[in-house]
């Protein structure tokens, strides 16, 4: 056990440029969609990292949008025996970009750049006393949580996942991406699991637990992330959040993805994040598009 929380594991450099990857599959997952790309040249992405994606044909609807690539976290990867990787993405169709990605069919080509951004730390790197990890995911934000959970399972590190959803339509992918071990669900509409917010589950857990041994990870809607952040900050529990912000490039070129830092100023979420420490930012709600 180290005296100081160490740095996060390093992520390998992304291949320079963008590359075409073939769509292997696309399927509905509740109200969301999961599609699979075959990436033959990229390195294994780390939990929390994301890709910039753009369908290679018809990337532009009736009106010249989508125009920029879209930032999408991977939701799972699997190395393929004959080289390369299967990358799964969980998509919520909220606009022209996500809709165009969701409309890709097997055999279509997709531009891929990445993996980009910072990864989640391991629990002991976040908190030297950590006994395991608490993962708090919401809606489409369960994708990076699923990747982190798999890594923890592989490393034999205990984790518990708390997943919150508005309703069944916003819970797509849970069955496919999560094992059934140690998962607790909350639905705002009460259609399954706990009726209410996932933060209720987190509070229950932290009350029962020794807070000093907790390491919390979260990804989801801004309001949820901010609630998780506040809960943890108040209890001095180290927490890492995977944030969103409008991105044009994903690799530090445009300075567009600004998120206010705790001490003033802004970080570039694509290279200084998307995974940030809860105490490193001014708010989890300030750098986000005003989506509900």
């Amino acid at each position: 056990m180290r005296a100081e929380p160490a740095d996060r594991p390093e992520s390998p450099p992304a291949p320079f440029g963008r590359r075409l990857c073939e769509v292997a599959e696309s399927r509905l997952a509740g109200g969301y969609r999961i599609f699979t790309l075959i990436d033959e040249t990229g390195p294994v992405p780390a939990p929390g990292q994301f890709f910039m994606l753009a369908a290679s044909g018809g990337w532009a609807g009736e009106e010249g949008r989508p125009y920029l690539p879209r930032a999408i976290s991977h939701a799972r990867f699997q190395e393929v025996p004959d080289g390369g990787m299967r990358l799964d993405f969980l998509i919520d169709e909220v606009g022209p970009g996500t809709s165009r990605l969701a409309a890709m069919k097997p055999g279509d080509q997709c531009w891929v750049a990445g993996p980009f951004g910072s990864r989640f730390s391991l629990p002991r790197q976040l908190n030297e006393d950590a006994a395991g990890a608490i993962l708090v995911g919401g809606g489409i934000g369960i994708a990076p949580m699923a990747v982190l959970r798999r890594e923890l399972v592989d490393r034999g590190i205990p984790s518990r996942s708390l997943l919150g959803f508005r309703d069944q339509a916003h819970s797509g992918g849970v069955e496919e991406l999560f094992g059934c071990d140690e998962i607790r669900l909350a639905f705002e509409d009460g259609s399954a699991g706990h009726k209410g917010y996932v933060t209720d589950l987190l509070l229950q857990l932290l009350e029962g637990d020794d807070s000093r041994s907790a390491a919390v990870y979260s990804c989801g809607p801004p309001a949820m992330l901010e609630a998780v952040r506040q809960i943890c900050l108040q209890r001095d529990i180290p927490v890492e959040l995977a944030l969103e912000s409008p991105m044009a490039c994903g690799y530090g070129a445009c300075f567009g993805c600004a998120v206010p830092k705790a001490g003033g100023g802004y970080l570039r979420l694509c290279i200084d994040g998307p995974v940030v420490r809860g105490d490193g930012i001014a708010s989890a709600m300030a750098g986000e598009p005003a989506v509900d």
Partner: protein
Amino acid sequence: MTDLATDICGIPLAGPVLNGSGTFDALAARRVFGDALVEEFPFDCYVSKTITMNPRPGNPPYRLWETPSGMINSIGLPGPGVDGFLERDLVGLSELGVPLIVSVMADSAEDFAILVEKVAAREEVSGIELNVSCPNVHSGLIVGEQPSETEALMKALRPLTSKPLIVKLTPNVANPHEVALAAEAGGADSVSMINTVKAAAIDPVSNRAWLGAGAGGLSGPAVRPIALAQVRAVSSVVEIPVIGMGGISDAESALEFILAGARVVAVGTENFRDPKAGKAVTDGLPAALERRGFGSLDEAQSATLA
């Protein structure tokens, strides 16, 4: 393979493709892509993000808005300030293996002079671009809107260095050629154009201005026809070379700028879609030249548009 070697204001270049200031952070890209960034550096000359006197945090979010075939940015020139830049960043940039142009901007002629002197003093720097046209900084008068102001500024800065001084023009004027002529009269070695076009967007949910700073600048293919008209209008009256940009997305569109009168071109927003966009432009140029019947880059550069 067609030889693409050329030069701008006496700076020899392996090819005619620069990056637009503020659209490619080579240091961040090196962190992200590793040494491949340097080995396959996509531009023939690197233009830094605009540097200011003091460190600046930049504008509050949101800073981006996608538009039909383009985007609006309101970045607000975040950066370490000139001293931080010269101390920390310049070394890394000098490892890129291409000539380096540093873009600067200030609120006053005095500050411009300090920036030019400090930057020109560094041997790593091949040229200086004067950003008199940023729509995202509230510095009162935009020098680049007034020919007389532009000429006066140039006259003040010209004696400070023998290195090339490039004036980045704003497209948000009725007659950009008047500003360009003034820059030339004041001693500029080149003009680069266009900077972004003033633009705004409305938040689809809150009904407020989307951009944290209220408004921003439009770039990308949407503005290409505007840029081509301005490059043509300017290059047909000035003697100094024009660095053309605005919506260049491939070799074909780069060549259009050269036919419109630009000597070399810069790729901006397209870098966000493809980190190697600069290289894609360069790689496509020989075929694009051939398709249009040019035997060399030089032939296209000297073609005059009827």
